């Protein structure tokens, strides 16, 4: 488990820890870098959206190697988030509308085999799952 302050300066540390955990779980390049990015994005969501940029909160990351898959839970106690309400990214439309956000969830979903969000006991829990059989 890793607990970091809700400050984007810690994203680099989140990335490094995730990459090491993924390598330890047996993933080969480029998967550890991709997993690190997905967890970076989930943590960024927690800091910038759930906590609205407040820097005095915490984000908890729980890593679990289940043998068949690698799981990371990114947990915050901020405002309820439902990233599933983010519109699907349509790149040409995205360019013409000069949008800048919403790519994080799109990235997570493209990298991971499973991305789920749940609200439990006043916490947002983003579960990221990557299978080891190379499903994606």
């Amino acid at each position: 488990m890793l607990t970091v302050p809700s400050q984007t300066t810690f994203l680099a540390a989140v990335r490094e820890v995730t990459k090491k955990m993924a390598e330890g779980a047996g993933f080969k390049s480029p998967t550890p870098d991709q997993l690190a990015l997905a967890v970076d994005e989930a943590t960024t969501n927690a800091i910038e959206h759930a906590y609205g940029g407040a820097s005095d909160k915490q984000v908890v990351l729980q890593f679990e190697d289940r043998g068949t898959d690698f799981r990371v839970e990114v947990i915050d106690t901020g405002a309820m988030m439902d990233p599933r309400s983010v519109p699907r990214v349509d790149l040409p439309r995205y360019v013409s509308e000069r949008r800048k956000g919403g790519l994080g969830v799109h990235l997570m979903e493209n990298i991971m085999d499973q991305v789920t969000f749940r609200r439990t006991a006043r916490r947002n829990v983003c579960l990221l799952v990557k299978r080891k059989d190379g499903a994606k």
Partner: protein
Amino acid sequence: MNGLTVETRQLDDVTLIYPQGFINAHTVRVFEAEIQKAIEQNRFKVVVNCSGLSYIASAGLGAIMGVIDEIRRQGGDLRLAGLNDTVRNIFEILGFHHLYRIFPTELDALRSFGEPGKAGA
């Protein structure tokens, strides 16, 4: 950890941007500011040399997405060069390689702005 420095160089009508480090939600403003500076100076031919970039998160991709339409409407383009495997992989995951012209080297990207009829392609 600083994370990112960005240097800029002008070569004729092309602005070369050199991000060194990584671009994520913490460092993106430094990168964004350099692109905005070029736009404010009416310099719409931009090459981002990514050879010093270790990785880019969605914040950085969003920074590029946020300006590309204006740059192209002004007859210019933002082109990328020297991507390492990690950065290239992220571009491919999102399909960005279909939206942006990506070159192996800075020289290739610079030359592309000189191609007849392709200055703003």
